[in-house]
């Protein structure tokens, strides 16, 4: 066990899986010679050569399609998008080819591939490059969508994604790459489809995923000083969502707030609220509230961007509200 960054955890997962299975290869913009736009693929070209670590032109639709074709003939491609904002150009391959291939071929073509890259806002990247796409992607039957929040989960879940015979979307975060945490040195798997209680508490459930898990833990720290113990549930997988873990927590705390980076309308939180009201109706003591990005394109101006994003203060206010406490 050593303390490493989220970036290096992903790097370890890629390296170990490429060592383990020579059908696994990495393809994307700047992944080889430049060692990755965010250095996730550092050292891989040197270790595995240019047949398995492939630089592409700036053609998202093209190399995503090459990945689908490679998966059809038995390889296990990992397609890196420099950000998921750029992946919009490739969405037809993700949604119409990868997600539906097994189904439309009558089971003839499994699609053991991974699409990965940073998702959501970083800092001042403006409206077109600050978007969280999980609700778009999780909407599609045929895709699995994961959002690891910690280095431990990043390594274990990327390995699970690479070994999965279905197309898996891995949503990372620019702001996560430098975060550190304990990661086992060798092989381990964090299963897809399992949420995790990142912190136990009995007063209110706070559901988060990806980057917002770190924010949720800050919220829990702050409220603990007031004697409010928040239970932080990290979804980890958006699809298939682990309803049982969410429901068990809400049955314990009787209230919930759902936190996400994305916009409100049809967001991941809306799906969580639906599961909670169906599975925990008789256990709810308050309406479920959501914290999310304001319903505008992300502003570029620093002060406006800060205002538009979900944050600790907004989340604390929501928790106080569902607990019927005065909001400070």
């Amino acid at each position, binding site marked *: 066990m050593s303390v490493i960054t989220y970036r290096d955890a992903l790097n370890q997962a890629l390296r170990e899986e490429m060592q383990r299975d020579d059908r696994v290869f990495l393809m994307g913009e700047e992944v080889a010679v430049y060692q990755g736009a965010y250095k996730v693929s550092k050292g891989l070209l040197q270790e595995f050569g240019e047949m398995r670590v492939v630089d592409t032109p700036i053609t998202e639709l093209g190399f995503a399609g090459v990945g689908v074709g490679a998966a059809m003939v038995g390889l296990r491609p990992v397609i890196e998008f420099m950000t998921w904002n750029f992946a919009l150009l490739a969405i037809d391959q993700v949604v119409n080819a990868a997600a539906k291939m097994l189904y439309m071929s009558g089971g003839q073509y499994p699609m053991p591939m991974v699409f990965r890259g940073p998702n959501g806002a970083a800092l001042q990247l403006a409206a077109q490059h600050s978007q969280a796409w999980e609700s778009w992607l999780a909407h599609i039957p045929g895709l699995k969508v994961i959002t690891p929040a910690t280095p431990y989960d990043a390594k274990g879940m990327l390995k699970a994604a690479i070994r999965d015979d279905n197309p898996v979307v891995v949503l990372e975060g620019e702001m996560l790459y430098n975060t550190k945490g304990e990661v086992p040195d060798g092989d381990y798997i964090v299963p897809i489809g399992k949420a995790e209680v990142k912190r136990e508490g009995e007063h209110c459930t706070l559901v988060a995923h990806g980057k917002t898990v770190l924010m949720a833990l800050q919220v829990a720290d702050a409220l603990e000083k007031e004697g409010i113990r928040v239970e932080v549930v990290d979804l980890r997988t958006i699809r298939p969502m682990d309803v049982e873990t969410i429901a068990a927590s809400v049955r314990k705390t*009787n209230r919930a707030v759902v936190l996400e980076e994305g916009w409100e309308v049809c967001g991941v939180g809306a799906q969580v609220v639906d599961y909670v009201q169906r599975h925990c*109706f*008789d*256990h*709810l*003591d*308050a309406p479920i509230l959501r914290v999310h990005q304001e319903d505008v394109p992300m502003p570029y101006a620093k002060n406006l961007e800060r205002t538009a994003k979900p944050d600790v203060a907004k989340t604390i206010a929501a928790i106080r509200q569902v607990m*019927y406490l005065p909001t400070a």
Partner: protein
Amino acid sequence: MATKVFMEALSPTMEEGRLVKWLKNEGDAVKSGDILAEVETDKAIMELVARGDGILRRRLTGDGDTSPVGSIIGVIAAADENIDALIAEASGGGGASTAAPATAAAPATAAAPATAATPATAATPAAAATPASQPPVPVPVPGPRPPAADLRSSPLARRIAAERGVELGAIQGSGPGGRIIKRDVEAAASQPPVSRLPSSVSPTAASAADYQDLPLSQIRKTIARRLAESIGPIPTFYLTAELDMERVAEMRSAMAELGDGFKVSFNDIIIKAVASALAQHPECNAHWQGDSIRQWHRVHIGMAVAIDDGLITPVIFDADRKGLRQLAAESRDLAKRARDRKLTPNEYTGSTFSISNLGMYGIDQFTAIINPPEAGILAVGSIEAKPVVIEGAVSVRRRLRVTLSCDHRVIDGAAGARFLQTLRRLIENPLLLVY
């Protein structure tokens, strides 16, 4: 905009109503909520109120006439509004007024003012059971809304309240808009139980904590089917017991000596004893629901009262938990208002078991007809002094014959007999009633 005045369903079982008396004349200005007329339903005389503002332009039925529920019996409109079309609709629509001679085409209406409002009840003395079957929970009727309709509470609060037997209506909510939340129910549940007794004012709001639904076992289904085939829709059997009333009589006269405030009737004591016995025998305090048996945790006694043209069964709610003084006062009040036909629907619905007493008519014993969905009714005869052998010697004792009618789908012979055993023990040792 004209407003039609309908004959409204003013009781849960009402199909037609007799307009006793118009209280507004044609040409009178009326406001929404004004009382237009008195209407006699199958159970009581109720007020029919205006549902719109304007002038009562036309009364389409006369005092004493009977109209089916849903028919148009009047029109409220502006003074100069043309209401011909509405009147045509009223007379042509099948639910026509009996007053308009032009409506001879509508044969179904009961034109004869003499039509009895409750024709079925006079048929047999055993019908002392009650009027026609009633649903256990009253349907909404015009009038003050029950508090439950406006009650806001979180799902969790409702569940905890049900589990702990807390009446939500008695709780002040501390959440937004008065929403009752978990902490309110928990605070209420930790108060002494007396304050949690439902008040007799809003007695009929049955909550899930008040009963237990038992699924039907195969043997129970077979019993239900075969016995029903054998004897009418309700396979009834009868158990008669003769109870010694000496101690009850002594108790009653001892109480009367304490002053007028302590006078109770035999009937009050019998109601109290039956209710206490039912509390110990939930299998007899039950409703047959077709696909399940509902055993009630609360005891609501229907008390058959004869009225001029039939009978009605006002309910004493939670009779097992009430003292004799309260019970006597309530039964007196209910009987009087029943005879005056002043009962509101929620005062004569919701009973879990009924008692019919014809003792005052000198009836030795009789069998009463079950008031479905209840599973039992107790027929009470007259108290009579007669020779009885006690420990080998003949002595003269006051005796009472009671007959329990049992719905065999719910109550088996031995269960009914055990209930009567308990009743006998209570009546013959009335001190147990205070135990």
